[in-house]
């Protein structure tokens, strides 16, 4: 049976199509203002990529911040559950996941069957999320996707002391005025975010081998620092953004079956 998972995030909408639990296609698009439209587009694109039509899809599960606005007759699943399910499917031995998205950050601990044991979430404050990094990238005039690699060129430690994204922006601007090297500022920014995520992970005593997912998992600078800080092996999947949608698609199969 073909199943679909759609993860409607605050910044990106992801769709995954599975055939008997094997990924046949996926799609990642910006969410924008019209959520229904974003969901339809992501689904159509994923169907196109797989060369199948909507009628072939047996079951759909939606997750993410905008899951209630799905235009389809679909079921819902929590982001926490989908993260756990998606990670376990790819890495059967892992017992925890760190999901760093556009407007929130989540850590989940689960057992070998994917049952959630504990989780912690920051969705109140931009610090420790993708939008914080975007704001800093803008201030430093670098592309968000290049931040991580650039920060690895840093030669000295500097500290960004502000936790708040708004205050950190002014702090970074004053660092630029003082002609501090871009690389070092970037590393300082990543350190600040990493310590927030580390604090969240500590709240549920997350340890051992972990998987990092979400769009920000692609930031090598952040993952490197997080690895040192947590003293854990961190795995980043090839497509870290689609893990939630993958979990949703797996749940779609289970619920139907």
């Amino acid at each position, binding site marked *: 049976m073909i199943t679909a998972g759609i993860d409607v995030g*605050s910044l990106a909408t992801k769709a995954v199509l599975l055939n008997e639990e094997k990924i046949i296609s996926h799609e990642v698009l910006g969410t924008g*203002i019209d959520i229904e439209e974003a969901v339809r587009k992501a689904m159509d694109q994923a169907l196109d990529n797989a060369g199948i039509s909507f009628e072939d899809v047996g079951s759909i599960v939606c997750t993410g911040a905008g899951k209630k606005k799905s235009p389809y007759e679909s079921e819902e699943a929590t982001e926490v559950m989908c993260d756990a399910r998606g990670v376990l499917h790819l890495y059967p031995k892992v017992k925890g996941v760190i999901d760093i998205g556009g*407007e929130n950050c989540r850590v989940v601990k689960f057992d070998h069957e994917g049952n959630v044991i504990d989780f912690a979430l920051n969705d*109140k*404050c*931009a*610090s420790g999320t993708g*939008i*914080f990094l975007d*704001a800093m990238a803008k201030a430093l005039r670098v592309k968000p996707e290049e931040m991580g690699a650039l920060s690895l060129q840093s030669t000295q430690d500097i500290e960004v002391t502000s*936790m*708040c*994204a*708004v*205050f950190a922006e*002014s702090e970074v601007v*004053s660092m630029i*005025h*003082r002609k501090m090297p871009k690389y070092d500022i970037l590393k300082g920014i990543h350190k600040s975010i990493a310590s927030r995520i580390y604090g969240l992970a500590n709240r549920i005593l997350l340890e051992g081998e972990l998987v990092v997912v979400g769009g920000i998992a692609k930031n090598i600078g952040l993952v490197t620092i997080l690895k040192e800080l947590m003293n854990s092996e961190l795995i980043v999947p090839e497509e870290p953004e689609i893990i939630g949608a993958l979990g949703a698609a797996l749940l779609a199969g289970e619920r139907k079956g």
Partner: protein
Amino acid sequence: MITAGVDVGSLTGKSLILKDNEILSWSLIPTGPDSSETAKETMDKTLKDAGLSLDDIDYLVSTGYGRVVVPFSDKNITEITCHAKGAHWFFPTVHLILDMGGQDCKGIRCDETGKVTNFAMNDKCAAGAGRSMEIMSELLETPLNEMGTSSLDIKKRLAPLSSTCVVFARSEVLGYLHEGTHKNDILAGACEALADRVYTLLKRVGIEGDFVISGGIAKNVGVVKRIEEKVGLKANICFEPQIVGALGAAVFAREILEKKAKRKKKRPR
């Protein structure tokens, strides 16, 4: 006796000159990237207005987050202490002070002499500071000094903005605008949310006694009115709420000199 106070805040530099117990002059300027330069600029302006030079100042106290880098200061004192002192100078019966600046917010309790007995502070999050209003002002294209009155002229009462973080509130506001909500209604929601945060902070130090609001936010009548409603107290606001810290610093400078003079009298050589 001529004393002065300089208050280098995150967004504004303030200075004030006191002759005995009378305010001679004061000035406010935006804080630049170099805090000691900002201190110099505001002090020069204030001196010029009073027709004085730096040599005429007998003692100068600096305060504010940039207080340690004021090159011509005789002593630096924390802004919490200075705000209580300044508020007490204007309103001798004050026991509760709210000072909201650009990047922080303080709730202060003081005794009948203006001495601090307790305080609570937020300097971690922009949502409870003046900066949040600046961001809303830019977003809703309403000048800062008109926000308060606009926020009281509403068509429909919205719930306070639900996002804690200002960064997220930005998207919330854009959503409202997209739906065609009138900007005054959104402004009201922003003021309401800020007043809620202030109320929580003030509760931590205890709400009772005569109440003073100082700092830039005191100029926003929309926020002030909503705070008054929540705390159930009338707010006393002086003619220029942003100079209260600098005034407190100048009053401290005078008291320090008076103490020195007394000591000299006691032990004549």
